[in-house]
Every structure is written in C-alpha cells, then in structure tokens.
C-alpha cells in the first residue's frame, strides 16, 4: 500500500517514481511550487525547494473526478510541503500524487430505498 500523508485538505500519496508526463506546471513567479490555494483562508500548500510538478490525467483514472491536483517529483534531497496552519510534511526523493478533499454537496442528496 502506498504511503499517505495528509496536510489539511490535501492528501499526498507516494507512488512509483516516474518521469514527468502530461503537462508540466511551472512554479509561481516567486519561485515556489503551489500545490493548492486555500479556498477560504487563502493559505497555500507550497514547496519552496526545487521540484517538478506535473499533471497527467491518465495517471489519475482511479481517483474520483475533480480530486486530482497533480504529481510532484522530488529529484534532490528531501523537501518540505508547508502551509500556514499545518505543520510541514517532509517529502523525500521520489514521486507523489496529490489530491484534494471533497464533501457531499446538497445536489448529491438522494433517498435511500431499502
């Protein structure tokens, strides 16, 4: 089973190390790689060391639609995933798949018929 890390509403899953495919997602102009912006607080899940972030939907077919954020490849030493409201998570060399958290919506409500 792949190792999982959770930082707030993000789940990071160590997967088999692979070369980036799909779309390479460039870092922000200030240099950090932002995995996700906080919808309410504006706090970001970010990595300030050099990593490669990419998005390839073919690698996320087993994830429910809309949850897949992308993959992060750590080529060098360990990096830190930081967030203002959560302790940092250390990611060592390898490839990680990142997904966001979901919640049931009012429109998803349905009557259960036993």
């Amino acid at each position, binding site marked *: *089973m*792949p*190792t*999982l*890390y*959770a*930082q*707030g509403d993000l*789940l990071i899953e160590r997967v088999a190390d692979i070369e*980036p*495919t*799909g*779309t*390479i*997602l*460039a*870092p*922000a102009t200030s240099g950090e*790689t*932002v995995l996700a*912006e906080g*919808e309410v607080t504006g706090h970001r899940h970010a990595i300030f060391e050099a990593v490669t*972030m990419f*998005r390839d939907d073919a690698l996320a077919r087993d*994830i*429910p639609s*809309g*949850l897949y*954020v*992308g993959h992060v490849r750590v080529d060098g030493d360990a990096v830190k995933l930081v*967030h203002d*409201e*959560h*302790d*940092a*998570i250390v990611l060592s060399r390898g490839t990680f798949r990142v*997904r966001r*958290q*979901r*919640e*049931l*919506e*009012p*429109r*998803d*409500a*349905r*009557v*259960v*018929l*036993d």
Partner: protein
Amino acid sequence: MVATSALGAALAPQAPPQPSSSWLGPADRAAAEAAVREIYAVARLSPPQIVWAASPVALARHWKVRRHTAGDSVRGVLLDTVINRAMSAARRSDVGGGLDALRSSLPDLTAMLAHEGQRAGVGALARLHLAGNVLRALMRRRPWHSFRAVSLSPYDLRWLLDPKLPERVAASERAAVSAAATLVGNAGWIVPHVHTCWLSDKPLVLSLDDRGRLHAKNGPAIRYKDGWHRYAWKGIEVPGAFVDHPERITLNAIDSQTDIFVRRCLIEMVTPKRFIYMGGADLVMRDETGTLWRRTWPRGDAWAAVEVVNGTPGPDGQLERYVLQVPPELETARAAVAWTYGMTDQQYRSLVVRT
C-alpha cells in the same frame, strides 16, 4: 509537453464562469434590435416586430398571450443558419478546448429560468418540483407550449462573446457571427418567431459560486428590474426567508422540509457543525480518524457527516474541529474520512502523517 502556470493550468479546464459586465445591467436595446434584424436577414426572414420584456418570466407571460399571432418559432432556423455555423467555426479553431468549458456553463441557471418561463408560459402551476410531471405531460400533448423549445438562453450562448471568435470564422460568416455576439451581449433571453422576436433585459443581480452555480449567501442570487428574483444555494432554489433571516433555520424548520435538496441547503446555511451541535444528528461511532454523525428522516432521507480534528494546533493551542458531509451509507468514521479523499478505508490505513 507544455509548460504553463501551475494553478492556471490545473484550474483552467474547470474554470467556473463568473458574471461579467456583459451579463448584467440594462440592455442596449438599439444595438440588440439592429442585431436581430441582421440575423433575421441572414436567415432570409423579414424583420420582425421586436418586443422587450423586463425579465425572462415577463417575456414568457407576454409570449403566452401573443404567440398565436407571432408565426412559427424560428429558433431552429436561427440556430441552423447562424449560431450552429458559428459554433462549428469556433470549434474548428478551438485548439485549447475552452469552448466546451464555456458551453457547459450555468446549467442550473439556464434550467431554472427555462422552468420559470415554462411555468409562466403554460399557466400558474404552483411549485416547480411538483409541476415537473404535469409540464412534461403538457409538452408531450402540446409541444408548441414548451418555452424551452422556443427560447435561447444567453448563458448557453455566451461563448459567442469570445472576442477572438470573429477572427476564427470565414469572412462570409463574420457579419452574422458578429451580429449574434452583439445580440447576446446586449440582451437577455431571446424568443424568435417569424413575425415577432421577444427579447428580455439582463438581470440587475447575478451571483454565482466558485463553480459557476447560482448562489448567494445574502439576498437573491438573481434579480431583474421588474422585481422578479430567486434565492439560490449552490444552484438549488431555496426559500428567501431563510436567506434573509438565517435565525429561522431551526431544527424544526429543517425537519419540516419536504424537498431533500432544500433540506441539505438549510443544513449548509446553518453549517453542518452547528447542525450537529444543535442536536440535529445522532452519534454513530468514533474511531481514531474522527466521529461519524447521522440523521434520518421518514421516507428514506438520510444525512451524515464526519467530524475530524486538525493535526496541528491553532494559534490558541486548540485543535480545530471541522465537519465534512459524507454519504449516509458509510458505517465508520474511517470509511467516511477515506471517502472524502476518494479512497476506501483499507487504502486510508496507509496514512502515516496528518498535520
């Protein structure tokens, strides 16, 4: 492989539509009327009489009374001669695929207004969700009564407002496409018949959530200058009294709802955490991942949420608790938390760190 801005690329395919100035405010009636005449000319139709209405519902009411003297609907003709050709041209050159994102915009709003127009057009049917079967029966028997079948929604046509579109179409079609864009940018709903073309004004208020659904925490989510308005929460129409007076959202009010979607909206408006603390749900079980709560109502309706605790203390040293709504059939808190990440509880057992 294409390098692009991280968040821009990640979010662009799902970028929600947001109201722009072209969606709101008074219509430029002169520009819209000129555009109607040009589009009719392209379709080899004589210039119609143009009738304005302050809202799509007022339009539908007027259309109901006058449609017998307006000639046949030419919606299909205009779609074939102008709009679908523009769509084809745009699609041929839409290498980025942005067109599909625009086309799929605002299904809730379009459906809501089409239903409203339908209701106004076929008579005073009391409630949308009760009227559905009656409307469908009417439409089967008398298809010319279908407002949806004769109207064009500005929200379905807003891809015409892409400023690059005229460059993408053949020169011979450019004038027609430009006229269609002018019409969509300067009017609301459109109901074209041979002799009469009805146009509605644009809304004064249009509020959407970050997924492009009709949504407003305060006041109506959509309002026209004739006063017609609707309150909505995440694309679902809700009673305005609860938006304007949230203190009225009591457990009794939630229990009293017969519409399960409205009931869910009320729980969200009061917040799931407060709903639980008010005593609205029953404790199912606790495990190391969180606490599972559930509530059932008669007739098979059930709601559930998992309460979890932040792994990192806040500035005050406290661990913040938050509540996530989950499918009611889940039996453990672990399964519920796993579901929020799209996993099984077995997969979620591999979690080593939570901060």
